[in-house]
């Protein structure tokens, strides 16, 4: 006759302690394995970069669309480009603010900030729950977390969850681990199905999800956003830049002809653009509409991002424009 399991209180707690020890070991392993996540690499590159005069900032559109060497070739082969791409994919203005602040600490006397955006990123409120802070958003846990507290109105429960999460790499970097499982899921999902078109960021089809579903929805969003102010982190980026004497240029990034024709060639978008220009002009910020700079749809890898060829063309043109800062004054209204 087999014996029943003999468990005492002491054995139960001892087992819990062993379990906790294993989780602590897992925590350490995750910390080591995530030492080179995207956000950390950008921060490390920023610290190691030679002083740059021109900073490009934004999300994946700027990350993929701005090539420093095409923008401003170095004076000689020994020098590096005067421009630095500080943009990060899958980021909101809060993360972009943190990266910008890191750049300000690393670079001496930058003179120009090129802030790229698309659609309503300047005015849409940034709202996150702790559960949303995965992927590149995890920079909020370890890089000046006071900004996360400032810009996300957290309930007490959310606040406690945020504080608990950021102290354990296993929790803070969970997105990096989950992304591996997501790759496994995509591999399984692909079996027996026609091959998906992919680019450097992932599945091309996914990026249509980041656009409005239809023109009507987009125009409704324009109507609402035309009464909004710049969101708080964008305002803070502008404020900190100007405090350092940095000229700020806000750029509507190049977008595929389909997006421009569907959404930007509308009175609603024009009205929203005028509203943005007014807000920016009030803070002496230049505005550059580059949305139609690349009319060739083949120079876009998906619904939003430029191919390397498209990025080269955009960067060269932007570099030519910005080589003379006086030209930028003319950009604020009509440069296309």
């Amino acid at each position: 006759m087999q014996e029943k399991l003999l468990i005492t209180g002491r054995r139960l707690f001892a087992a819990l302690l062993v379990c906790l020890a294993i989780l602590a070991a897992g925590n350490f392993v995750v910390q080591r394995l995530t030492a080179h996540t995207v956000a950390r690499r950008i921060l490390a590159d920023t610290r190691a970069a030679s002083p740059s005069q021109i900073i490009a900032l934004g999300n994946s559109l700027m990350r993929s669309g701005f090539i420093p060497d095409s923008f401003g070739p170095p004076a000689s082969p020994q020098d590096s480009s005067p421009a630095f791409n500080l943009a990060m994919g899958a980021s909101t203005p809060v993360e972009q603010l943190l990266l910008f602040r890191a750049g300000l600490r690393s670079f001496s006397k930058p003179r120009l900030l090129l802030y790229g955006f698309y659609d309503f990123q300047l005015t849409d409120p940034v709202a996150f729950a702790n559960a949303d802070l995965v992927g590149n958003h995890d920079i909020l846990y370890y890089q000046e977390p006071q900004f996360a507290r400032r810009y996300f109105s957290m309930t007490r429960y959310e606040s406690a969850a945020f504080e608990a999460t950021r102290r354990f790499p296993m929790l803070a970097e969970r997105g990096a681990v989950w992304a591996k499982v997501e790759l496994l899921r995509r591999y399984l999902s692909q079996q027996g199905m026609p091959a998906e078109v992919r680019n450097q960021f992932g599945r091309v089809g996914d990026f249509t999800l980041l656009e409005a579903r239809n023109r009507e929805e987009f125009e409704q969003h324009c109507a609402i956003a035309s009464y909004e102010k710049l969101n708080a982190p964008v305002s803070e980026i502008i404020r900190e830049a100007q405090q350092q004497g940095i000229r700020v240029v806000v750029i509507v990034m190049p977008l595929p002809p389909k997006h421009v024709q569907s959404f930007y060639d509308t009175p609603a978008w024009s009205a929203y653009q005028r509203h943005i220009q007014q807000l920016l002009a009030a803070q002496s910020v230049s505005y550059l509409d580059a949305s139609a700079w690349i009319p060739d749809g083949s120079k876009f890898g998906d619904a939003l991002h430029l191919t390397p060829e498209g990025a080269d063309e955009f960067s060269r043109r932007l570099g030519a424009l910005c080589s003379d800062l006086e030209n930028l004054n003319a950009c604020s209204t009509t440069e296309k």
Partner: protein
Amino acid sequence: MKKMKLLTWLIQFLEFLGGERDIPPAGFPALGNPLFWGIWWGALSLVIYVFCGQSSKFIYIDF
């Protein structure tokens, strides 16, 4: 017959490991050993941790 006995034993073993039975299968010690169970719980917890994010929406995976 041997295969059926092995299958039965395996089922009982999995049920014991999974918390369904309190009595281990024949030949397996009635381990109350905290090290054994702590490691098993730790392994389960790590599996849960790794796989519990599948409802998160990953459009963009940047490595």
